[in-house]
């Protein structure tokens, strides 16, 4: 075999193979955490983007930084679905699994469709690796894989062969093998290599020998698939018919960070981000720390409490204070969030939810914090909660969080999820100039004594007077406040009045947010109500059923407190409301208590994994 065969020869061989059209394909790269699977997945995703497919991704990595090589806990994987149609999920099961070692095969075989393609790195299936992965016998030689099309590729030796004339160390050669695998998959799905080659050359610009080795291996993998007989058919996936516009690939982290940067710009505020490292929220801190030239100030605090305290201090100082964390950090921040409720200062708290309770599953997803962010504070302490439903939706909802916080002088929870943060999808870029400004009002003087708790009659927000402004000197704090003056007050009726003000203030936000939309029929047997990251699988399940002639409605909430004001009316139009959640029924509880006439049933999954489309379809069928 000649991995670097000349182009003419390749072309001749290529004509022998057939090219088929495919609608949607799901690929999963799986290997050791040091095998470069996330990198391969990212490159495959970027290429899907530049080729105009719609796509959704799901990276999964272990909580351990480097679990022992070759073991099950050390497996890192990346799944992408790409399609010529509009999709919102990374796919239930994959059409192709690339397994770099026996552990990856063991962990990820259950994620492969029956009859799917399984590529394995044959070189890694030796006795030691099999034992580490807990295989009693070699799955390549027994009946384990009888339901799959298995393609055994000696990836390590082919990579070494492709690089025999390159001046690389042995360990460096071994590290190139992910590009060989990527090359094979690129050929299989008729992908262009250009984007990845460009990326490699940029990334390894300072080490041209590494760059040229990686490019050579990528091409060798591509040519290997093209020339050999292992893959008889090549598939082509056409461009998706996305809405007209300009797009880019975006992850939830990026969309969240860019959303808050944009919001600060719209409000003409300095964005101050106080945060303590915690998975899966740390990437927001990393993202924002890169953008100091936007005037952004990031502060890595000594703990979660200091992080939120510093953000409150920045807001007290008249700027935009934001803190970010995950569930365990929310626990620690709750007293300070309550201080911001009492002091009535704007504050945005990002909660990137992960598996709980306690430390739980730090790198995995869940929707377990909804009741915590709503109610996890002492006393009567209502706050606004918004939730993005996909990675790119985080941009829009970040701006909403800031708008509400500033206009209503209140903490707002931006309730995201690990999978929303980690996933990537195409983002239709907004018209920046059409985004409305966020108006922050700061009194400059007072006629007579300044009253820090004299409320705006419309919003019930108190004035945001900035320290340094002459004549407006005042004191705020956590003790019960007298109406208007904000002086310490132990008067019972006054306390009730202030509690009512704050509750009505949050309730009133319902008049200032978009009405809830319903996709599909506006009345009938069943509506599926969701929030946050379950949007994709619910949408896909309903779309699939529609193709079968089954009509089901979907409503997906971006606003969890307050609810959109037409929500009750919407739900009343349906005989049944199905609420799928990655928890044991938290929105379900809220809906039942807010709208007791609603016939709501829950669907719960607490496995720290997203819903599969098939699971939701099966549940819907129970009611149709």
């Amino acid at each position, binding site marked *: 075999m000649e991995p670097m065969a000349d182009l003419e020869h390749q072309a001749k061989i290529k004509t022998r193979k057939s090219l088929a059209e495919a609608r949607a394909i799901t690929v999963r790269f799986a290997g050791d955490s040091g095998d470069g699977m996330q990198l391969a997945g990212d490159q495959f995703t970027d290429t899907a983007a530049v080729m105009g497919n719609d796509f959704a991704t799901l990276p999964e990595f272990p909580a351990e930084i480097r679990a022992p090589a070759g073991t099950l806990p050390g497996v890192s994987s990346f799944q992408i679905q790409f399609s010529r149609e509009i999709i919102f999920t990374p796919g239930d099961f994959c059409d192709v699994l690339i397994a770099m070692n026996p552990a990856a095969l063991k962990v990820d075989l259950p994620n492969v469709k029956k009859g799917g393609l399984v590529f394995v790195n044959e070189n890694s299936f030796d006795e030691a690796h099999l034992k580490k992965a807990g295989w009693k016998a070699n799955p390549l030689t027994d009946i384990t894989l009888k339901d799959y099309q298995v393609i055994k590729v000696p990836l390590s030796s082919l990579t070494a062969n492709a690089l025999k004339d390159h001046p690389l160390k042995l360990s460096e050669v071994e590290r190139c093998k992910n590009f060989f695998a990527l090359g094979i998959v690129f050929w299989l799905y008729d992908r262009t290599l250009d984007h990845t080659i460009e990326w490699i050359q940029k990334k390894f610009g300072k080490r041209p020998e590494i760059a040229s080795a990686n490019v050579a291996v990528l091409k060798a993998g591509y040519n290997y698939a093209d020339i050999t007989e292992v893959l008889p058919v090549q598939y082509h996936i056409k461009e998706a018919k996305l809405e007209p516009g300009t797009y880019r690939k975006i992850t939830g982290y990026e969309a969240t960070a860019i959303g808050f940067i944009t919001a600060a710009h719209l409000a003409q505020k300095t964005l101050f981000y106080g945060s303590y490292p915690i998975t899966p929220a740390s990437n927001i801190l990393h993202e924002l720390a890169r953008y100091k030239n936007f005037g952004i100030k990031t502060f890595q605090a000594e703990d979660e*409490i200091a992080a939120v305290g510093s953000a409150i201090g920045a807001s007290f100082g008249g700027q935009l204070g934001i803190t970010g964390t995950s569930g365990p950090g929310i626990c620690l921040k709750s007293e300070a969030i309550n201080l911001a409720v009492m002091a009535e200062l704007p504050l945005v708290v990002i909660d990137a939810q992960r598996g709980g309770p306690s430390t739980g599953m730090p790198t995995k997803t869940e929707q377990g914090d909804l009741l915590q962010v709503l109610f996890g504070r002492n006393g009567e302490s209502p706050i606004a909660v918004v939730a993005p439903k996909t990675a790119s939706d985080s941009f829009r909802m970040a701006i909403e969080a800031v708008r509400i916080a500033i206009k209503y002088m209140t903490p707002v929870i931006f309730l995201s999820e690990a999978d929303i943060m980690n996933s990537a999808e195409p983002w239709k870029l907004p018209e920046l100039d059409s985004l409305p400004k966020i108006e922050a009002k700061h009194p400059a003087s007072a006629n007579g004594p300044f009253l820090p708790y004299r409320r705006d009659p419309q919003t019930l927000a108190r004035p945001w007077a900035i320290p340094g402004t002459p004549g407006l000197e005042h004191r705020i704090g956590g003790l019960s406040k007298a109406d208007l003056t904000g002086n310490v007050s132990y008067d019972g009726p006054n306390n009730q009045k202030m509690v009512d003000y704050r509750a009505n203030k949050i309730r009133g936000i319902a008049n200032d947010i978009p009405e809830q939309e319903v996709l599909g029929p506006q009345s009938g047997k069943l509506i599926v109500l969701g929030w946050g990251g379950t949007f994709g699988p619910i949408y896909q399940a309903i779309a699939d059923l529609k193709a079968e002639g089954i009509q089901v409605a979907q409503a997906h909430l971006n606003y969890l407190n307050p609810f959109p004001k037409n929500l009750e009316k919407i739900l009343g139009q349906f005989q049944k409301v199905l609420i799928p959640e990655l928890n044991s029924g938290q929105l379900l509880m809220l809906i039942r208590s807010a709208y007791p006439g609603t016939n709501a049933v829950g669907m719960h999954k607490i496995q720290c994994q997203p819903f599969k489309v098939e699971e939701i379809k099966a549940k819907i069928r129970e009611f149709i």
Partner: protein
Amino acid sequence: MAQEAAKKPPHAREDFISGQEVRWCPGCGDYSILATMQRTLAKFDLPREKYVFISGIGCSSRFPYYMNTYGFHSIHGRAPTIATGLRCVNPDLSIWVLTGDGDGLSIGGNHLVHSMRRNINFNILLVNNRIYGLTKGQYSPTSPIGKVTKSTPEGSIDYPINALCIAIASEATFIARTLDSVPTHMGSVLERAMNHKGVSFVEIYQNCNVFNDKAFEPVTGRDMRDDRMVILEHGKPLIFGKNRDKAIRLKGLQPEVVDYKEGMDSKGFLIHNENDPEPNYAYLLTQMEYPSMPVPFGVFRDIKKPTYDEMLNAQVEEAIKKRGKGDLKELIYGSDTWTVK
């Protein structure tokens, strides 16, 4: 920001008195601290709206309500975190954190340590009365071992913590100790703290006449304080005593008290140096405790170091200089886009 104190005060103490009724127990040492603070600020040109007092929870943390400035009475132990965020977005304010031995050294110990090691430009006043007053009399982290309180009927079995040791270990750039009963000394220390750029940490011995009366009396009592306190003055030998007849010198690594007579060569005695970049000497002073040694009061340490807020702002400016002012369009529409028609 802070100006040298002028001879004729630009403000009157009354300018800094808020309308709120002061509600400390009669005879509480906090009254003297409040009055001294108001008198001290009156000596500076800085207008009243430029001051912010931020406190945690405890008796002394009611302080902001009584100052006619901006104020924030926050939650237990967390005042330094709020002051940190405020300082990061506003370089012009004079920010004061009011805390106590429970608020600052127990529940808020972490923030105290970290705000000092970052050298953030604000002033921390730790009012130490060696007791939990607001919760009605439990022992605190500075209560001596054996202290009998409501929560320790058989006596405390907690070894106490020394606030100034924490400040030194955290490399605070200004560290001082003063006391409620000598307002002139307190005023001079507060003035120095105000003028210091970077974090200033001041421990104030304060008497809780209700739950821990006369806790410092053996040291600071009017009749014995000249013999049991040593007042630190930069560049001068450590001399004390009613008749200025005792001095301190080093024996090995330990300080010891020796006799002194006016006019003696001060060679061999400890000469006070606030500006020592090394913390060892200041630490040695913190270990001087009654009854074996006189207790030092005054400025232990005053050194210069870039502040966190200064460096933060410099990084932002540098980023703008290097990469140009952030362009949102570039950030959003930047690279790798594609168009669907």
